[in-house]
């Protein structure tokens, strides 16, 4: 990148960071960390993987499908064909529909042509005899014609169905009044949903989405870590034939590894914060009135990701899990990279490991509550549970259990990675 070095290879922007090396204290781990940071900052993959990818991709993945689907973004095209000239009342209900591109015709239409060739998402047909059926106490039938491959057709149907429900409710009310019955008479049982949370407060849709997505993000950070850099710092160093000279320096291998871990942790922390911030932006967009047609009061609640009084715990919890996740992931990557003879081979090991480790992590949102204790004991899953326990239900017994097992696995992975790094075959494959 010209920002960092010209085509001549002369370093300009990051030269100061390089010169800083002269004045570093006599701490080998700090010297190694400095060198790894300088190299990482001159690698365009750092900008792409740590900043651009999370910042751009997460909102796109999370919110874009929802926003594209939203009737506010592109209103669905609906054709209503009223073939019963007496069905004026229901036509008025259709006219009141919001966020739709509606055409009403009082004549039969070519349904196939409208959907296949003219791009209509839905054709609604009100056939002849509809009004007489409804007014005589029977059922009027309405037909939906739609493209089964189009999700927007389903969306259009749900919008139209709301209008039909309103009409149906009004007709039902008239009928009940005519025979002197109440609405309760035909609805002997009603169900009401009440949220139960530790704080006894209602939770916003934004908070629910965040609680589902953040543990997943923490797990992904743990699994992928600063993956490319971890591979580069071990297998890449061997491939470029720099590791042998490095190991002849009068420092302990554990100090070299510690230095590499320091930079890896810094990079995965940046990547983690970038991922989570962009995920929260994605969640905000996803539950915003731009994507979901709320009324104003609901919209204000929906966009609130976290209740302000719980914000400090939320932020510290997320940062803690990101750091622990990064360390865990990097220790695993270092183990895999120490086994490989080349960067490419290391990537294959890492790919295999990622698939295995994804299983318990993805399971976290789906397992029944009765199995949460088990998830708190499993590697990686304990990390996702820690994030969840801190965000959703800060019960300290659960938090401490998840934290204890996360730290235990981290210690195991760090010891194993240090053993792997200490092997003779590290230099020679």
């Amino acid at each position, binding site marked *: 990148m010209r920002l960092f070095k010209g085509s001549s290879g002369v370093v300009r922007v990051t*030269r100061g960071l390089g010169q800083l090396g002269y004045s570093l204290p006599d701490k080998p781990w700090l010297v190694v960390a400095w060198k790894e940071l300088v*190299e990482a900052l001159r690698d365009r993959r750092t900008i792409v993987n740590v900043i651009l990818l999370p910042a751009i991709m997460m909102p796109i993945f999370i919110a874009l499908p929802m926003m594209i689907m939203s009737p506010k973004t592109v209103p669905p095209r609906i054709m209503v064909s009223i073939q019963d000239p007496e069905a004026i009342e229901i036509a008025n209900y259709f006219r009141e529909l919001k966020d739709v591109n509606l055409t009403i015709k009082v004549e039969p239409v070519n349904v196939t042509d409208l959907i296949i060739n003219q791009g209509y998402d839905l054709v609604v047909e009100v056939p002849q005899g509809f009004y007489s059926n409804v007014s005589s106490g029977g059922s009027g039938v309405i037909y939906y014609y739609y493209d089964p491959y189009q999700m927007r057709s389903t969306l259009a149907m749900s919008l139209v169905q709301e209008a039909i429900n309103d009409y149906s409710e009004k007709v039902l009310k008239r009928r009940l009044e005519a025979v002197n019955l109440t609405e309760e008479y035909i609805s002997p049982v009603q169900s009401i949903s009440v949220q139960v949370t530790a704080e006894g407060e209602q939770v916003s849709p934004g908070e629910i989405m965040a609680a589902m997505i953040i543990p997943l993000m923490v797990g992904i950070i743990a699994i992928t870590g600063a993956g490319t850099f971890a591979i580069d710092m071990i297998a890449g160093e061997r491939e*470029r034939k720099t590791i042998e000279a490095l190991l*002849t*320096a009068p420092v*302990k291998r554990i100090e070299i590894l510690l230095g590499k871990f320091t930079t890896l942790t810094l990079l995965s922390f940046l990547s983690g914060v970038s991922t989570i911030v962009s995920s929260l932006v994605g969640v905000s967009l996803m539950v915003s009135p731009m994507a979901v047609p709320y009324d104003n009061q609901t919209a204000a609640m929906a966009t609130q990701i976290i209740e302000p009084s719980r914000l400090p715990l939320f932020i510290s919890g997320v940062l803690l899990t990101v750091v622990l996740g990064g360390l865990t992931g990097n220790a695993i990557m270092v183990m895999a990279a120490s086994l490989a003879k080349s960067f490419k081979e290391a990537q294959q090991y890492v790919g295999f490991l990622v698939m295995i480790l994804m299983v318990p992590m993805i399971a976290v949102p789906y397992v029944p509550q009765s199995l949460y204790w088990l998830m708190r004991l499993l590697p990686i899953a304990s990390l996702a549970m820690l994030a969840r326990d801190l965000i959703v239900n800060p019960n300290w017994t659960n938090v401490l259990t998840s934290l204890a097992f996360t730290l235990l696995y981290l210690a195991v992975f760090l010891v194993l990675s240090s053993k792997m790094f200490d092997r003779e075959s590290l230099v020679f494959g």
Partner: protein
Amino acid sequence: MKVLEVVELTKRFGELVAVDGLTFHVDKGDIFGLLGPNGAGKTTTLRMIYGVLRPTRGTVRVMGVDVVRDPVKARSYMGVLPEESSVYPRLTAEENLIYFGKLKGMDEAELRRRVKELLEALDLEEKRYVIADKLSKGQKRKLAFARAVLNKPPLLILDEPTSGVDVMSAREIRSLIRQYAQEGSTIIFSSHNMWEVERLCKTVAIINRGKLQHLGSVEELKRLSESKEFEEVFVKLVKGEVGEAV
């Protein structure tokens, strides 16, 4: 004074005996040539000396310090240029030296002075702020050499230091090797360039199939093989056309 002492040094890789009971020592100020055909065990021997390979049997002592028991202290007496060593491609020439200088515990003033001195001596001054990826193969090798000699260690281990460098650069490197030996450094040197060995080395060890075949001064080995050209001496000794010199 024995700067390096190797006793019964052996390395097995499974069934293969790469180095088989080597015993020799190198005195202070000596330029010691470790020679042998490809696969003789030279690089394995050097790797055990600088501690990246653990011996199956035997000991290596540098300045009296056992390399296996106290590798960090032993390595503090060494500067190493491994055979296939490269430099960090995204660090500048200067930063490559800063990195190793700091790892060797050099203080800022001394490091600045030596970096300047070596970049000038090896004609790399113009490449000071250039990332190593943009250097030629020879410039990279010179930089790796500078890295090894940065703190003027008592023992320099150079595995084919002039391999892949042009004539002018090779001269610069040889000149520095002589200079360090005159200043009291001890140098172990491996090369396939017999002309270079003849001009640089005081003592030469020839190993073949992991065993020490001949040990002596260049002149002694010439007399033994009754040859004037050192290349011919080497061929005769390796082929076993003359008797033991050890």
